[in-house]
């Protein structure tokens, strides 16, 4: 089954908003390449997002994603989550 990447991006945004208790401009988020540039992620925020994404997509990240660098790459994250959505 294929998933529309836009929907995945929207779900990522909502998970990030919920995790950090913030509102994100959808248009700006849709154009962003890196989550960490966009939000200035610190270590705790990265973990909050990590867990929120797992809850939203109902799965557990594999070992390689325990990294802010990897988690921050929105395009790669979106592709990874699209496979699991």
């Amino acid at each position, binding site marked *: 089954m294929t998933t529309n990447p836009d929907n995945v991006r929207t779900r990522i945004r909502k998970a990030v908003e919920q995790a950090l*208790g913030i509102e994100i401009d959808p248009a700006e988020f849709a154009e962003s390449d890196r989550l*960490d540039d966009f939000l200035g*992620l*610190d*270590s*705790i925020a*990265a*973990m*909050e997002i*990590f*867990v929120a994404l797992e809850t939203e997509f109902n799965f*557990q990240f594999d*070992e390689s994603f*325990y*990294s*802010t*660098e990897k*988690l921050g790459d929105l395009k790669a994250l979106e592709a990874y989550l699209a496979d699991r959505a």
Partner: protein
Amino acid sequence: MVTNSQIERNVIASPPPKSRPLFTVKDALWLVYLYPLRFFVGCLPAQLVPRLERLMVPLFLLIGSRQRRGVEAKLAPVAQRLPPGRTPREISRAYMRNAVVRALEDLVFERLFRGGHVHCDGIEGLNHLEEALSAGRGAILLSVHSFAGRLAKHQLARSGHSAMSIRSQSPQAGGMGRFGHRVLQPRYVKFLEPVIGDEVYAQSPDCSLQILRRLRAGGVVNVHLDGNTSRTFREVPFLGGTALLPVGFLDIVRLSGTPVLPLLCLGNSRNLRICVGPAFDRVPAENSDEFIDANLPPMARKMEADILAHPEQWELWIKL
């Protein structure tokens, strides 16, 4: 009771070195410790270190009189809560002695374990840790900075429970000059890597994720409630005053469901004592602030009680 103000500040980095003098007495002591003393002790058999302690303790009691008075001043507000018969003066002397013993033991740390010179009659309450780990969410051992902490951590590792520590790459360097800050402190941080072992630096952007990974793998993480390796702190009543306690770990606890157990480390290599207590009751909450409000106070009270029961074992009455 916890105050409502959650405090965020960057205390991981030391104050800017611009305001420091070039070289201080503390720099001189650290220079001697990290170079000539380290090389000299490195040539001694580990079992001779206690003799060196006997020589050095009186010297440090003499040159450390200002520090001793500092410890006594910090003890004054809690004097009524100290164990019967214990006085700030006697505790401050024991504190200085423990500081010297620990500094020397750090120099021969690996050889102490390799040579079987660490004497510990088991780990009290190990069943609490094993019970907590059986739930499959890892365990956080909560402690304060005690002189026996590093020995205890290695002893735990030898019992099959290696605990990850969270360390600052540039700890606060009060009393150090620019030379100490730039040259000696990084050297000391490096020197302690094999002593502390199994660590993650708080400055790493992946710090929390690495902790989460360890816990999800069923591992153990050691958190110091009196540490400064966090970006969020809460001001709580502590030892007759207030203290800013790091609370970042409680977000990890909230999100991972990991149990938190108190860890008490006492003594030195000749009489190491390690006690793990039963897990703190976990109070669920809607959000981070409420979770901290509900769960931090009993943890702070337990750590405070441990310090007051064994005041000479707590490193942070003053920073040497």
